[in-house]
């Protein structure tokens, strides 16, 4: 390939990477955690004192609930498995009047159970929104609003990411055979980092292509559909999706007490696809002609079309199948193709091993963007000539180095502190969910400010130490919660909750190792670098001078 073409693609790779890199770090680090959204939600959920209702009694609970609380006719969820996150058999949300249809965070949340006398007891709850915070960070990189403009912004980031992937492959192609698996560990540190960046990039390339394409789809699908509807489908799209209008006169309202019992609906769903494991029942619009129950679940051998699994829609009275387009393991070819795009993004195929694989790939992706920024800085390093004084490094490299450390470590520390705040502040503040946000933003912006005030060399020692401490605080909080009940903290002993503690322990220890390696480099490494304490001292710069920025 022509060398000037390679040079052009090198510039494209460099600048798309620099523009998108830090946003992508946040998206990938938070994205790695969203793979284990449910375990994290279970870890942070406070112990709930809800009277348990057996599955056999759930039919009674549903009919008595609907008789006494007609608002539940609009929709409620029946949990087949009771976990820390889903402590009640039946739960529902009452949204504010002006809420968006995708808004699952605002409004009031209720749990229903039966008391000893068999009458319905309703408790209002405040479910933790910690995992929703992590998910929003993942989707819109910490912009405070998860709305359309934020998604479009993220779409631009995703497009830059796609171009960075394309150009990175073009640059690497001519030397791919030579460079692949060549991890030249040695004195040339930049060579080693570049080799590592290339190997990680090439090995995880299919994963990254999937993420770039799906992220652009998630950002712009509404606009693309609207345009295609006008130019290709002749404006018939919305009627094709909503199905035929109900015919004739309004059907009589059916008696909720006559619905099939939940266990019967579960049995019918399982009969449709033997590998399907139902997890919850979502009842919708019971007072309308479109009444349905979605039996949600997963299939260990199939793929699930949405992040929370797949479903079959049944008529709650007759058990008639209304739609099996989203039923894992029993989809038509075209629906299966569409579902696979979602499953490839959400890691909802192949069970737990694939989830772990995505977790590792996402963390490796975060590292890829971090190392890309380090390579940008390293390429612009001013070397010390023999016999001359240590040169001052360029201002842009110092600023990018500080921003990289501040953003990346601020994000890691912010998420970890926000997690432990769920236990530390529980019972001490009125609105714990808003405190998850406050803690995250406080830690993130303080870290960023700290990195600029202290300069990259010092911040590269101090902020990873903060991130390590925050992450190690996750298992420590659980340990203290178990040992010292007076603290009011808690430790769940279910596998997923313990898995969160153990994973945080491993991540925290890796951060400690990174911190020690970086500190060694800052103190003892060659002085002609933004990462050297010697360089900062040679410039006589304590913190960055205000006039410089």
């Amino acid at each position: 390939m022509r060398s000037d073409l390679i040079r052009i693609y090198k510039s494209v790779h460099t600048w798309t990477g620099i523009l998108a890199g830090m946003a992508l770090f946040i998206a990938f680090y938070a994205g790695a955690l969203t793979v284990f959204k449910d375990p994290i939600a279970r870890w942070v959920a406070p112990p709930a004192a809800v009277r348990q209702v057996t599955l056999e009694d759930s039919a009674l609970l549903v009919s008595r609930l609907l008789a006494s609380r007609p608002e539940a006719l609009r929709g409620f969820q029946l949990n087949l498995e009771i976990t820390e996150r889903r402590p009640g058999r039946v739960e529902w949300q009452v949204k504010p009047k002006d809420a968006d249809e995708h808004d699952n965070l605002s409004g009031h949340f209720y749990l229903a159970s039966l008391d000893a006398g068999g009458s319905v007891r309703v408790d209002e709850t405040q479910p933790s929104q910690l995992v929703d915070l992590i998910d929003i960070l993942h989707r819109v990189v910490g912009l405070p609003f998860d709305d359309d403009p934020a998604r479009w912004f993220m779409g631009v980031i995703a497009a830059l990411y796609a171009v960075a992937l394309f150009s990175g492959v073009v640059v690497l192609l001519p030397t791919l055979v030579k460079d692949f698996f060549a991890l030249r560990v040695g004195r040339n540190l930049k060579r080693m980092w570049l080799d590592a960046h290339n190997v990680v990039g090439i090995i995880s390339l299919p994963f990254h292509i999937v993420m770039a394409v799906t992220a652009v789809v998630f950002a712009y699908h509404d606009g693309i559909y609207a345009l295609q509807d006008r130019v290709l489908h002749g404006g018939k799209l919305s009627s094709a999706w909503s199905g035929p209008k109900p015919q004739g006169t309004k059907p009589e309202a059916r008696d909720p007490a006559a619905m099939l019992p939940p266990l019967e609906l579960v049995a019918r769903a399982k009969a449709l696809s033997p590998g399907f494991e139902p997890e919850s029942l979502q009842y919708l619009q019971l007072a309308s002609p479109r009444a349905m129950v979605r039996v949600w679940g997963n299939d260990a051998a199939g793929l699930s079309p949405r992040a929370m699994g797949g479903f079959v829609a049944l008529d709650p009275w007759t058990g008639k199948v209304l739609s099996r387009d989203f039923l894992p393991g029993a989809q038509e070819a075209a629906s299966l193709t569409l579902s696979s795009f979602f499953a490839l993004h959400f890691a909802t195929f192949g069970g737990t091993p694939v989830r772990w694989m995505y977790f590792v790939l996402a963390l490796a992706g975060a590292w890829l963007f971090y190392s890309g920024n380090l390579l940008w800085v390293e390429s612009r390093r001013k070397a010390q000539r023999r016999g001359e004084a240590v040169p001052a490094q360029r201002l842009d490299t110092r600023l990018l180095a500080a921003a990289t450390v501040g953003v990346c470590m601020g994000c890691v520390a912010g998420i970890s502190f926000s997690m432990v705040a769920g236990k530390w502040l529980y019972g001490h503040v009125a609105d714990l969910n808003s405190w998850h946000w406050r803690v995250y933003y406080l830690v993130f912006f303080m870290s960023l400010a700290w990195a600029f005030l202290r300069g990259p060399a010092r911040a590269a020692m101090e902020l990873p130490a903060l991130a390590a401490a925050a992450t190690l605080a996750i298992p420590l909080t659980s340990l203290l919660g178990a040992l010292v009940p007076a603290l009011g903290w808690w430790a769940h002993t279910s596998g997923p909750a313990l898995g969160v503690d153990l994973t945080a322990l491993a991540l925290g220890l890796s951060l400690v190792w990174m911190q020690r390696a970086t500190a060694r480099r800052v103190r003892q490494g060659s002085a002609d670098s933004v990462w050297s304490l010697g360089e900062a001292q040679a410039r006589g710069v304590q913190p960055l001078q205000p006039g410089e920025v």
Partner: protein
Amino acid sequence: MTTTSTADAQATAKPGPRPIQRDWVSRTLGGTLLGFTMAIGCSGLLTVVLAAADVALGTRAQLAMWLVPPVWLSVLGACFMFASGLRTWLWLGLANLVVFGAYFIARFF
């Protein structure tokens, strides 16, 4: 990424006669706009094929939507291969004509 800062600085400081012109703005605009229209055209071809295979509109429209970003992003990535910004527009314009021409012809069958 192996270029040093000095090489980059020289490249921008001395434009001179170059075999490949950078033309960042016109290339990127061409790749973004014509890549998008070409992707819509390709999705049109796909809907024609799927309609012939009796795939329902609701499903066909989703598959057609999913085709747009991969085509768009590939063109955007490839638009730096052409010799200049002008050639980017000419080649991609021609590709658009071919795709939309094929779409309108295919609709008659």
